[in-house]
């Protein structure tokens, strides 16, 4: 059979290359996925819709167990029972570089990660060693406790006691006040150049009632309002740095680590804040070593030069290779529960406005086989909208509608009916996941040839790709990522509403628009969930997005690194960003 021949050849070639490089490259896998992929847990796979009571607004990521994964790797290894040791500097090999530090002006990882270590958030999402076990997004206390909510429009936060800004000029350890939160949020909401204004569009007013009380009133009820406040994007920075004009180059926060030095292309160092309100960190400091080359990071990790490294493992084979040389390394897996990348069509193109063409593209893809070939079974086939909003456990593929299966004959019929028997189009893409994007597209291209479609693929550089994807200027099709958010509105409004800038697929469906608007202000959990199911099913039925398979995330930890863990629902505890929230708990057990 042609398919088998191609894949046999593909597999053989791929293994040859791997032998030659002997595990040297591949490393960048997971950089984007680490940033974008959400994680779940294992458990039953009944695939039944959840009862309304199991998913709440604040637990919208709420996942029950994901699909059964092949054996051999676990989702969360155990912490040692010994007493944590104090001292030492944690060294992390990372791929980002020094950038501006103003949190309102960028969402890029290199900025976010530093801000998240130096600054805190008003409230936070659960992180740390328990997070990978979470079945849903959990809001937890940070600078304040969780708010009182007498109705869906008023939120009263009490600032936690004993919080001081770091003892660094110009803050010099002054007390943290509710007014600081008000200032930061208003700047996020209104300052020119802010990329986070949409989070605040529903706010009517923010009031600092006194030094320890903050009240936020919304114009209209928004059941998702609290979740963004707990995310990495909305850290609380001081007015003093803005007034001094140094907010882009200096960071003085309330966090567990004080920023000491940033040397572009070389390193970023931080030292512990002895006055941290949650207790001083066990580590003396942290050193981020900027190492853009994945093979170098892997070598440094293997040689024990670093305690953690970004983007080491792209798949199971990388993990197996690492364990061959470093047997004591701990490895966690994070099964995805939303497709991150998908074949994204320009829906303004008349050819793709015909749903039969899109449905044929869905039927032409053999997802299960792709998971086996590309991910050695450590992957899954799920839609872009997290199933966790709808189901208690990962549904079977047939529950994703009639276009989810592989049926070339039916695909050909649909193409013929649409008059597109010889459909030809070009896909631009960027290689985010250490050959994962390329492999997927190569296989898809071959599969589509079998149904008469000529899909040409063109790899482009990162910024060029993002420019076309974010601004929605790609001509025909692209291998687009979905922006993960932690609140349901991200998936049931931002991604699909025809006026949303997050609708990069250019979906224009008045029924979806109406549902998207309705669910946004629906406070009844059952009713809201019903709307989500309608949206979920219709997006799949109309094949607005050609969802591709997703690989399981693999993360490696040196055996002496403890008190630190990544993984959790919807990328809420990503190794790319979420260092600050758990840095004070991390420790090293090294001689």
């Amino acid at each position, binding site marked *: 059979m042609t398919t088998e021949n191609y894949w046999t050849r593909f597999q053989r070639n791929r293994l040859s290359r791997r032998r030659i*490089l*002997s595990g*040297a*490259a591949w490393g960048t896998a997971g950089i*984007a996925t680490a*940033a*974008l992929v959400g994680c779940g847990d294992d458990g039953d796979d009944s695939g039944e819709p959840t009862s309304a009571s199991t998913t709440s607004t604040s637990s919208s990521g709420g996942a029950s167990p994901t699909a059964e994964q092949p054996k051999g790797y676990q989702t969360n290894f155990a912490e040692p029972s010994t007493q944590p040791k104090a001292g030492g500097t944690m060294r992390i*090999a990372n791929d980002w*570089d*020094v*950038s*501006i530090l103003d949190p309102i*002006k*960028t*969402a*890029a*990882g290199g*900025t*976010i990660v530093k801000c998240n270590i130096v600054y805190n958030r008003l409230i936070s999402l659960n992180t740390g060693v328990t997070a990978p076990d979470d079945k849903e997004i959990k809001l937890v206390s940070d600078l304040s406790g969780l708010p009182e909510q007498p109705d869906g429009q008023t939120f009263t936060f009490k600032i936690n006691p004993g919080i001081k800004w770091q003892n660094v000029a110009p803050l010099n350890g002054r007390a943290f006040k509710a007014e600081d939160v008000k200032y930061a949020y208003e700047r996020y909401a209104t300052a*020119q*150049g802010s*990329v*986070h*204004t949409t989070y605040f569009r529903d706010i009517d007013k923010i009031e600092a009632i006194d030094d320890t009380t903050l009240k936020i009133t919304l114009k209209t009820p928004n059941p998702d309002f609290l979740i963004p406040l707990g995310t990495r*994007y909305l850290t609380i920075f001081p007015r003093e740095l803005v007034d001094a004009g140094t907010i*882009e*180059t200096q960071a003085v926060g309330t966090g567990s680590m004080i920023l000491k030095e940033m*040397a*572009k*292309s*070389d390193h970023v160092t931080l030292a512990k804040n002895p006055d941290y309100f949650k207790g001083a960190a066990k580590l003396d400091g942290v050193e981020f*070593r*900027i*190492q*853009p*080359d994945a*093979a*170098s990071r892997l*070598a*440094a990790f*293997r*040689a024990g*030069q670093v305690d953690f490294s970004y983007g080491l493992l792209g798949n199971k084979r990388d993990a197996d290779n690492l364990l061959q*040389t470093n047997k004591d390394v701990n490895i966690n897996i994070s099964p995805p529960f939303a497709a991150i990348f998908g074949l994204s069509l320009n829906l303004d193109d008349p050819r793709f406005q015909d749903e039969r063409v899109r449905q044929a593209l869905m039927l032409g893809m053999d997802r299960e086989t792709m998971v086996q070939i590309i991910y050695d079974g450590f992957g899954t086939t799920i839609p872009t909208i997290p199933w966790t909003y709808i189901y208690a456990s990962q549904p079977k593929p047939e529950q994703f509608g009639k276009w989810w299966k592989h049926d070339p004959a039916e695909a050909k019929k649909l193409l013929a009916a649409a008059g597109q028997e010889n459909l030809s189009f070009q896909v631009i893409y960027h290689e985010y996941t250490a050959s994962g994007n390329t492999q997927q597209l190569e296989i898809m291209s071959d599969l589509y040839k079998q149904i008469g479609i000529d899909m040409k693929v063109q790899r*482009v*550089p*990162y*910024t*060029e790709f*993002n*420019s*076309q994807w*974010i*601004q929605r200027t790609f001509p025909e099709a692209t291998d687009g*990522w979905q*922006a993960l958010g932690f609140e349901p509105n991200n998936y049931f409004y*931002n991604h699909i509403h025809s006026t*949303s*800038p*997050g609708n990069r697929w250019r979906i224009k469906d008045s029924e979806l628009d109406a549902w998207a608007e309705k669910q946004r202000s629906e406070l009844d959990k059952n009713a809201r969930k019903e709307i989500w199911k309608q949206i979920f099913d219709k997006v799949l039925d109309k094949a607005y997005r050609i969802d591709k398979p997703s690989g399981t995330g693999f993360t490696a930890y040196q055996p002496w690194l403890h008190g630190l863990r990544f993984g959790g629902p919807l990328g809420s505890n990503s190794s790319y960003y979420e260092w600050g929230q758990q840095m004070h708990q991390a420790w090293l057990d090294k001689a």
Partner: protein
Amino acid sequence: MTQYIVRRLLMAVPSMLLVSLIIFSLVRLVDGDVVMARLAEGGYVTDDQLAAMRAELGIDRPFVTQYLDYMVHLMRGDFGKSLWDSQPVWNQIVDHMEVSLQLAVMSILLAIVIAIPLGIISAIRANTPLDYGARLFAILGLSLPDFWIATMLILGLTLWVGWLPEFGYWPIWEDPAKNLEALIFPALIVGYRFSATTARMTRSSVLEVLREDYIRTAWSKGMRERAVVLNHALRNALIPVITIMGGQIGFLLGGLVVIETIFSLPGMGRLMFNAINQRDYPVIQGITLVMASIFILVNLLVDLTYAVIDPRIRYS
């Protein structure tokens, strides 16, 4: 001589202007800008917000306005500020230049130490096993990409030796031992590549000179081989070698991008690479102008060296 130098430097001005105009145009032709790079995978922004961000950075102004503004600042010695991190471009170039210059100097010295003796031996023992070995060494240096050599070296050290030089950079005046540890392998790899061309050029040049009448005369006078080769042949063979080396220095600086990335060295190559990814126009423009200046100065130095090597050459 002074007149010649001044004239050459004055002739460099239009070249630099042309370089500035070309690079200023080219970077803006590439799809994507710093606003896109900043947004990366996060944030939802409207077209109006995107326009406001571009206006704030001044990259929405007409091309001519931007160029003239840039040139006015450049005339005052102001290379501008990075669009990515708001730091002065000149400071960034100076910070990163230190690493690249040290690496370039070490590589060139290693290349000279390897290439000149190798080329001479290859020439005076032409078509012997020694010559074949030297030529194979040079051809491998030309053929194997430096990123491949670097990756294999790192892999080999990690997997089979169990030791790896620490990645990163330590200034020589702070920690000479670590500085050497960090730079020796990159310098060896770059130097090897550099030496390959130089060795081949030295071989052919020395071979050609060895066939000259004055060399035959030297032999007939009973001079020793060492004196013939070093005093008579090599000196006359060096001019084309130096010309080639001078031209290669520009490529060497440009080629450091890969090696600096693999060995995590914060040099000019890394700065340029990041700036291109981030569409940081002022940094790209600044580095290009500095590189072009170095290229022009090195070529001037090469021309002046001719006079030192061959007293018959005079500049006026």
